[in-house]
């Protein structure tokens, strides 16, 4: 009896709620440690980035306009869907080089991290807002509001947990984002877009590209309609380039270096605050 022939998965990028191929038609080949070919992924271009950026901007008003409670429900839904696909992600992380045990721990941590940030959606405002006792007859209060559209460049070696840890605080706070997945883990990143897609996350809120950081970093940090950039690699040249490009329109630059995304120190509300603006309102008090 002949062996059943596998149906292989095509890994696509995710823009505006649709699974598409790069407009370039070019691809990169992923291999494992022993050099075996794993999959082909899209080699996204600056045009793909621009499309994704337009989608993210279009989605921003609607996403931040949802109630905080509703955003929390959607993040929690992502956790539920990821839980349901545990086996798939463990398999893909293993292909990408993780041990079975490590892959399992990582998927579980990613699920829990989504639950963690789901909980923050309707709470960080209570931690970071204030009523300010000014010296005049005014009611004065300060509240956080999302910065806007965020470029997220996942580090080359980051994995599922790294990707989730960067996306979750950004969208929990009402921002939308364009993500460049780390190349080594592009398969699980592409599969994570399927979780996003089936979790009631509105189109355009999270857009995920694959490709070469060297080709996209400049565009992702210079685009004048991007409000913030989130970067976690430690290479000084890239960081300098990002900061220089950010100065074109005073983007918020957030660097967060880590050698272990599993560490619980990546669970805190201050990462949400990094992508917030504080708005203070003065209002008179009198009859």
């Amino acid at each position, binding site marked *: 009896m002949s062996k059943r022939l596998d149906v292989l998965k095509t890994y696509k990028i995710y823009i505006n709620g649709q699974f598409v191929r790069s407009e370039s038609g070019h691809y990169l080949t992923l291999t494992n440690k022993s050099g075996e070919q794993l999959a082909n992924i899209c080699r996204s271009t600056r045009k793909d980035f621009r499309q994704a950026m337009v989608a993210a901007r279009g989605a921003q008003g609607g996403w931040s306009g949802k109630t*905080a*409670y509703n955003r*929390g*429900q959607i993040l*929690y839904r992502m956790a539920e869907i990821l839980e349901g696909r545990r086996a798939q992600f463990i398999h893909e992380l293993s292909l990408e080089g993780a041990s079975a045990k490590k892959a399992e721990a990582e998927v579980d941590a990613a699920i*829990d991290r989504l*639950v*963690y940030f*789901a*909980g*923050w*959606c*309707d*709470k960080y405002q*209570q*931690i970071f807002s204030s009523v300010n006792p000014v010296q005049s007859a005014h*009611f004065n209060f300060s509240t956080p509001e999302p910065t806007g559209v965020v470029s997220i460049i996942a580090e080359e070696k980051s994995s599922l947990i790294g990707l989730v840890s960067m996306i979750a605080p950004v969208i929990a706070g009402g921002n939308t984002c364009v993500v460049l997945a780390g190349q080594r883990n592009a398969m699980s990143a592409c599969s994570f877009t399927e979780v996003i897609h089936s979790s009631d996350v509105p189109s355009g809120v999270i857009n995920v590209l694959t490709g070469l950081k060297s080709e996209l970093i400049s565009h992702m940090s210079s685009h004048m309609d991007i409000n913030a950039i989130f970067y976690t690699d430690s290479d000084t040249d890239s960081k300098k380039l990002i900061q220089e490009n950010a100065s074109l329109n005073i983007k918020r630059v957030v660097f967060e270096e880590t050698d272990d995304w599993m560490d619980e120190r990546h669970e*805190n*509300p201050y990462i949400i605050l990094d992508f917030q603006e504080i708005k203070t309102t003065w*209002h*008179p*008090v*009198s*009859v």
Partner: protein
Amino acid sequence: MARTKTDQPKLNFDGLWDYDPAPESSDAISIKDQYDLFIGGEFVAPSKEGRYFDTINPSTEERIASVAEATTQDVDIAVKSARKAYDKYWSKLTGKDRAKYIFRIARLIQERAREFAIIESMDGGKPIRESRDVDIPLVAAHFFYNAGWADKLQYAFPGRQPKPLGVAGQIIPWNFPLLMLAWKIAPALAGGNTVVLKPAETTPLTALKFAELIQDADLPPGVVNIVTGAGATGSALVNHPDVNKVAFTGSTNVGRIIQKSLAGTDKKYTLELGGKAANIIFEDAAIDQAVEGIVNGIFFNQGHVCCAGSRLLVQEGVADEVYRKLTDRIETLVVGDPLDKNTDIGAINSKAQLDRISTFIEKGIAEGGEVHQSSCSVPDKGYWCKPTLFKNVSQSHSIVQNEIFGPVLAIQTFRTPAEAVEKANNTPYGLSGGVWTDKGSKIFKITSKLRAGVIWANTFNKFDPTSPFGGYKESGVGREGGLHGLLPYIKL
């Protein structure tokens, strides 16, 4: 067709096109004929001196089921079970795992939302529109919100290491049975406590259905215990020596008794008691929306709301207009079958409550108040009260001073903001208040002067799990909901 003039304009609401009944089907729900106590994760019969009592449907006066009456001995078993669960399981769990359990509860409530809503309306008499669209969604939301806090408490109380208190004894009223359960249980569990909860004797069913849900959520046995019964059961719970925290929602009189009985113990307590809120309408308000707010303030849940806007203070310049609009508006309120989707005002919760309301209406008339009721008809069987307005009443009238807890609005007028504030504050209560004006600065000024725990500006009767709720003065101690609602369940 041309513009013709009538001398005495009048709006007519009935006759040409009346809505047919649109009852919510109760086929898909399951209610047992008899319920035992929920202790240690199991339904157990009350101890031998215990007995069962009936819970009836106030819209039909028919029995729905019997529930056990917990004795002092049963309460003791429940508290012990809660203590054991606290020591053995719950206090050893991480915040993350507690959060997961509470999220699970939230999801199960969402899945069974309609069943809860129907039973709530059958057992308590509230319109299905409210139980379906307000009570149950808020219940789920409260569990969701508090679930998220379970692993984030160190951010709620910076500089401290928040710890649970232990076992919480909780007593809830009949006006929002499952919602009050959620207000009590969700923050208690998030804070790491275990609970023994007593639902009101006229509305125990959704709490018992919740007990079944707790089983399905696979919570460690004893983390949540539900003991049914009346005042004696509640008293046994409050006075049990191994309870660390008492949470009570109900009348000011009972609250006073509880506070007194806790004297000399080091139990923490929160009391959410009565109210007699003033809804203040200034002449620069958006009048049509204010009228909606008045209606919502006093007729929501048949007026069985501790924060109901039961006193209307309206500025003299718009008093006639507001009154005319109110009388028109109450003609469109549908009174009747709580399970009909079109019902706005359901059944009064019990015979005893209906008697109390009727007595106050009679008193109001005897004291010279000008009464006006909707012309609607009410069913023959069941406990009903038409929407009722009282004009020409003053601070000294008994219907202005006392919490009626029914669909009865006392209307007074005022001339200046200072007079409005003075009248609003002239009560031993201080739970809530309403301010209606299009002028923002006036809102902040008036709210700063009102001695009450929740003020609604250009809205009324809004509730949210993120927002603290609770009273000043005789309306209670402590807050429920929001970040401040965690505090009563935390040792800092």
